[in-house]
């Protein structure tokens, strides 16, 4: 219901309009000043401290006393297979789960926003998606153990119905358990942003598309998807990023058999090896910057401006 006048803009039209956007008269300078001031504060107060990690990562030291000599030892410490493998493993798991969340979450968010009348059912579903944020992740993750364990619920069911002769060992302390444990907690972070962005799409727009003879699939592809893109992008970020740092599922469900990034960081910091922790962080930053550049390059070659500003009104 928000942007009534977007009515007949197809993404193609929007894209066509983009290059030649009429640069609108600049908004009052107060707005700009606010942006400049906030960004400056952010750069000095937040980005600068974080960049100081790069400095720390080439120092030597233990605890809070650093030797002010440059050393690449921290990088040598982390560029070993048992530090890199967990990073790659984590990335793989995060990509898989994020994709899975999208498959599970997008249709659901769409239905929640456009297929369900406002009422108690809708309210309760939305609330059910919000409540888990309030709960201690550790407490609700460890409860998987009596469910998945050797003598847990699932195995009792399987063996008592003679589906398997022996209890299954791989239900717990495996990558399977971690995947299973991650799907639930990160579902709301995928659904909610998509739900918001789809809710914002004017019903009239979808009706118009239908009246013009589009099939639901066509409407979805040409109307809903482009307009929901900011929500999808936000959903992916909301889901993938916190999952990268998740140390609960890997610890409690991996049982030390599947090591992931977050544990590595926790351990380096617990060992007060701050330079190595900083080096690992810096490596991660560089890897992401590289990845972002690659994606940008590829998209440029393909000629699509696939970003969240897509569908923006020029």
């Amino acid at each position, binding site marked *: 219901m*928000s942007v*009534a*006048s977007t009515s007949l803009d197809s993404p193609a039209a929007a894209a066509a309009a983009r290059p030649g956007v009429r640069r609108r008269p600049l908004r009052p300078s107060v707005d700009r000043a606010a942006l400049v001031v906030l960004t400056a504060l952010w750069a000095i107060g937040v980005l600068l401290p974080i960049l100081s990690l790069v400095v720390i990562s080439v120092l030597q030291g233990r605890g809070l006393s650093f030797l002010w000599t440059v050393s690449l030892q921290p990088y040598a410490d982390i560029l070993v297979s048992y530090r890199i493998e967990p990073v790659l493993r984590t990335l793989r798991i995060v990509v898989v789960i994020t994709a899975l969340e999208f498959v599970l979450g997008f249709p659901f968010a769409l239905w929640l926003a456009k297929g369900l009348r406002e009422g108690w059912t809708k309210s309760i579903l939305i609330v059910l998606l919000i409540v888990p944020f309030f709960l201690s992740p550790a407490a609700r993750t460890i409860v998987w153990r009596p469910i998945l364990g050797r003598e847990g619920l699932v195995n009792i069911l399987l063996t008592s119905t003679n589906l398997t002769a022996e209890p299954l060992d791989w239900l717990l302390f495996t990558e399977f358990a971690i995947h299973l444990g991650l799907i639930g907690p990160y579902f709301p972070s995928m659904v909610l942003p998509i739900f918001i962005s789809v809710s914002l799409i004017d019903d009239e727009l979808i009706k118009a598309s239908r009246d013009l003879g589009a099939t639901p699939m066509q409407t979805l592809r040409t109307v809903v998807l482009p307009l929901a893109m900011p929500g999808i992008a936000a959903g992916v970020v909301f889901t993938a990023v916190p999952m990268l740092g998740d140390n609960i599922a890997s610890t*409690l469900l991996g049982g030390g058999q599947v*090591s992931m990034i977050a544990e590595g960081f926790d351990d380096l910091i*617990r060992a007060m090896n701050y330079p190595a922790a900083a080096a690992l962080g810096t490596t991660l930053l560089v890897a992401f910057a590289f990845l972002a550049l690659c994606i940008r390059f590829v998209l440029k070659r393909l000629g699509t401006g696939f970003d969240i500003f897509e569908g923006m009104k020029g």
Partner: protein
Amino acid sequence: MAGKIIRRAGTLTRRSFGKGLAVAGAGAVVTPAILRGGLKRAHAQEGTIRMMGGPTVALEDWSLFEEQTGLKMEFTPFHVDDVGALYNEILVNEAGERFDLINTLAGVQKNLVEQGMVAELDTSKLENYDAIADTIKRSPVLYVGDDKDWSVPLYYNSDSFGYFPEKLGLPRPPEPLDWDLLLNSEQTLGQTALDGDNIALMIGGMYLKSRGLAEIGDPANMTASEVETAADFLIERKNAGQFRALWRTYDEQVANFVNGEVLVQRCWEPAVKEVQAQGLDVEYATCSDFHINWMHSTFIPVQAAERDNVDNIYRALDWFLGGGYAAELAVLRGYVGSRMDLALDYAQEKGWSEEDIAKIQANIEKVETKFSNPDYWIGGAPDDLAAHDAQMARFRNA
């Protein structure tokens, strides 16, 4: 059409938005006030002792402390096993300015002594201190080697592993077992669990040392090459499928026993008590080869030693060395207090039940049996922490 929709949107949301804003605004104004109130309490009034320590230090409540010393206790639990966070709390957050007593896993405080954060104890102000056994006072986790006393032992214990005697067909304690059962046994393959932190490496080191399989000086404080040897051994066992899981927390230990994940598990003694109470037939092993000895100790931070309530601080500290605390703790957690002799006196004087007195006597015996092994004390912070951590990462990833 557009106009109508906008107008509708306008009325719908301005109201609710205003509401939300008002709530958030009120929160913003009220919070700092509440928090400041919270902080102010940190400057305690006369006669209050502020202590920071592991949650296990605390009895069910502090009424006994308050009754016996006439002081108030304000206890702040801290995650003492996380040494990095603890050092940060003391060195960076200056916990000494907010606390009168700081409890740590003994051994951790030795670095703090070096850094000048710990006040030297005036043992003449502690009635119950002198009679503590020298093996404890001069144990490697307490003694810095300068003939001075820095930290008071609150309680100690010697750890081993829990096991199912029936299922395994093994004898019950005090009949001794050995660590092969946990680390190197066909019978328990895939059904044992181990610590998920540095202590696993130390156990590996102790195992190798006790069997003469490797030259290891102090398993609790290994050099880089020693710790690599220990990790190699553990990785070999891990690849052989020995371990079902590595744990980090107490609730994991309990869950592993109850959900049938393990037959043998390296764990804390209270975890065994917890599952016994659930009716499981689990025992805490007595071992013939070694035990892991640990201690919780408490020091006075330098900042506190200059405050005017220092006499009260010593009075509080002395209480922890008295019979009341040791007796209560022995029954509650099975840990050994510094002065079990006083504990026995206290329990008899108070007319405790025979069952409880037996628990105290069991503790006195435990000191004689379990602590007769070579002194494998673990002190939380080995000198080459980075090497331990690296090898632990390697072990976990294997």
